[in-house]
């Protein structure tokens, strides 16, 4: 006989440590005692993303969430809720978002990701069944191009590719000059070069039609008949799904000539990039589409007026496009109700690093970092301490625990010395070395610099060398001054955003973690134990029980000691691999 009710008990990290196991046992026992084992199934689940409110029990099929449950509440859950059919108000989750859906607790709303994980990305009819192409029909048959742009203005949508420029304004610039040119182009920036970011790829893989529909809308609004999607060749699955999507759209008369029988023509071509970060910069991207080397050129003139082959060109990011059809369909006012005063709508973040629930997160602008990291991300694994979160990739910076409660939007992130960027969010814990992380980003910027202008080419390399020196224990106090002195001219004199932003990680980490730089320079110490040259591993004889695990695992055979006697590491021969540290179950190996 099938079960009538299910009690799901979270056994995620944090609920587990809040004794969810006992609740699970108590529920099982109560169900068995009442002889209801045939009707009620009690199961353990993965994290619900509501960890700060744990332990969590979810009741199905009515989808009720109970938070902060105690073993003493078990009787009430079974008797009042399951048998009596009464919700227990005091335990019920009271999410702050409006609406009846208990899933509101997750603080996420899916607009750009609305179809990801819901539809088959290779079947246009499923997209159509989920509002697909309703916005395009509405725009072409009921709205003038200027109305479409006006709706975008009302929505307050800003570019999701990094800088946050108002999307409607870009479209309007192009719209206003379109008559002076024989052709206008619509370009989608799917380069996505930021380390740790993969939201654009996921949108293209999960819902390619939404981008095609929005580009066609842009074509209608800006008087263009030709679009290009610039995507890196390293994204084969996204490319394949785009091709499938395009041919299906053509088959249904949604792309190509005479779209929906309206007389409007628009078609899209895919251009593959070789995966150079600088090719995400808009002018470099356009050069690359033209078949030139992907190098930036000075702006103005902006692409909106003088872009691809000198013609007016709208260039937007994938996630920006993914929002547009819903805005046209539901109206700009609907969209502008979500978010903060100056940053409307939602933002997709790729949450990675030291976090329990890594993944894509789409939250309204104004959500705090704490909500993202703890409520949605489930906090830091293994009970480690949160150190910082890096946002904005190589153009951004770090945000510390002091600012976890800042509502995130474009302005607030910049005020904290970081950036929205494309939405990579890398969480760091006490085991991450800030100087090392900064060096990683600098290395990235130096590697990816196109070399066209001196401040970026030379300045970036110099800064990297200084960071390298510091992590090797050869840093001096002057080095900090040099870093600061190099940063400002580089920001001012570089030609494109890559060079202008390259010093950001340094300035940001110097602002919040100067003490960690000083530890490397003055004490020759890496507090996180990451910078190999500055680390020594020692065994605490008071803790070591002489289990011999470390000496057996050490690849260089430099740990000695009798069984059941304290062991000892020969510092001369130690290669600092850290295997003994990871292997010791007793915490006897210390890093200094």
């Amino acid at each position, binding site marked *: 006989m099938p079960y009538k009710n299910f009690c799901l008990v979270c056994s995620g990290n944090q609920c587990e440590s809040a004794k969810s196991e006992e609740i699970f046992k108590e529920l099982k026992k109560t169900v068995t005692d009442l002889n209801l084992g045939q009707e009620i199934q009690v199961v353990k*689940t993965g994290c619900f993303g509501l960890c700060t409110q744990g332990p969590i029990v979810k009741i199905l*099929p009515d989808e009720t969430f109970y938070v902060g449950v105690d073993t003493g509440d078990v009787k009430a859950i079974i008797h009042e809720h399951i048998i009596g059919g009464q919700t227990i108000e005091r335990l019920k989750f009271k999410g702050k978002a409006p609406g009846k859906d208990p899933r509101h607790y997750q603080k996420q709303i899916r607009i750009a990701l609305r179809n*990801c994980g819901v539809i088959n990305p290779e079947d246009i009819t499923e997209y159509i069944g989920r509002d697909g192409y*309703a916005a395009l029909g509405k725009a072409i048959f009921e709205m003038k191009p200027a109305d479409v742009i006006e709706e975008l203005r009302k929505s307050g949508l800003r570019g999701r590719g990094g800088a946050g420029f108002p999307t409607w304004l870009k479209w309007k610039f192009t719209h206003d000059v379109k008559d002076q040119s024989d052709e206008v182009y619509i370009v989608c920036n799917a380069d996505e070069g930021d380390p740790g970011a993969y939201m654009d790829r996921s949108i293209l893989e*999960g819902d390619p039609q939404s981008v095609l529909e929005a580009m066609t809308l842009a074509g209608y609004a800006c008087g263009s008949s030709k679009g290009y999607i610039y995507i890196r060749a390293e994204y084969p699955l996204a490319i394949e799904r785009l091709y499938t999507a395009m041919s299906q759209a053509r088959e249904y008369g949604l792309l190509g000539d005479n779209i929906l*029988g309206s007389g409007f023509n628009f078609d899209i071509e895919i251009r593959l990039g070789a995966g150079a970060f600088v090719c995400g910069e808009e002018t470099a991207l356009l050069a690359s589409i033209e078949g030139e080397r992907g190098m930036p050129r000075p702006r103005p003139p902006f692409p909106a007026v003088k872009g691809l082959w000198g013609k007016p060109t709208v260039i937007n990011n994938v996630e920006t496009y993914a929002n547009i059809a819903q805005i046209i369909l539901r109206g700009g006012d609907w969209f502008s109700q979500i978010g903060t005063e100056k940053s409307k709508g939602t933002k997709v973040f790729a949450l990675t690093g030291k976090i329990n629930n890594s993944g*894509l997160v789409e939250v309204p602008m104004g959500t705090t970092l704490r909500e993202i990291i703890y409520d949605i991300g489930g906090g830091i694994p293994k009970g480690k301490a949160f150190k910082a979160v890096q946002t904005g990739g190589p153009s951004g910076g770090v945000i510390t625990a002091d600012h976890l409660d800042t509502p995130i939007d474009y302005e607030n992130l910049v005020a904290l010395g970081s950036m929205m960027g494309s939405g990579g969010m890398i969480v760091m814990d006490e085991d991450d070395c800030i100087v090392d992380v900064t060096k990683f980003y600098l290395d990235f910027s130096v590697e990816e610099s196109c070399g066209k202008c001196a401040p970026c080419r030379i300045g970036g390399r110099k800064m990297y060398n200084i960071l390298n020196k510091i992590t090797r224990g050869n840093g001096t106090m002057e080095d900090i001054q040099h870093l600061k002195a190099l940063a400002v001219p580089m920001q001012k004199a570089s030609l494109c955003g890559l060079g202008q932003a390259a010093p950001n990680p340094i300035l940001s980490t110097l602002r919040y973690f100067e003490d960690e730089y000083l530890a490397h320079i003055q004490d020759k110490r890496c507090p996180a134990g990451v910078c190999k040259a500055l680390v020594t591993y020692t065994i605490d004889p008071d803790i070591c029980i002489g289990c011999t695990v470390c000496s057996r695992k050490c690849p260089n055979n430099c740990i000695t000691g009798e069984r059941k006697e304290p062991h000892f590491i020969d510092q001369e021969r130690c290669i600092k691999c850290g295997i003994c540290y990871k292997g010791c179950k007793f915490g006897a190996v210390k890093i200094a």
Partner: protein
Amino acid sequence: MGQTPLDAINELREKKRLELHYRKGNEDKIEILIGMGSSGIASGAKNVLRTFNEILNERGITNVLIRRTGSLGLDHAEPTVEIKMTGMPDIIYGKVTQDVAQQIIEKHIIGKELVCGHIYDRPAQDVVKEPTHAL
């Protein structure tokens, strides 16, 4: 006069909308959605897909529709699989190995009970409205 292309698309939309909706309530239709974005595939979604196909064939279960979809957003729990069937709530399973796939078929689909330890929640609320006239 024939139907305009716009009418045709609108008609298809209504039909599909209902179909997407009725899928849930369709008496003997069981749906298995497998998250097949790049990261899903990297963590073994293709093997999971194959395993489901094999076991269903072995068992002679034919009323199942296996569909591939993009990332569900639960990257930490990949491979992820959502099961929709009558008489059971929609459930997302994560960390689905071959063994878990076997359990999902035996327990969830055949036995109508949930598989312990592998249930994860939907990553977010979604903005596309369900059809109201369908109920």
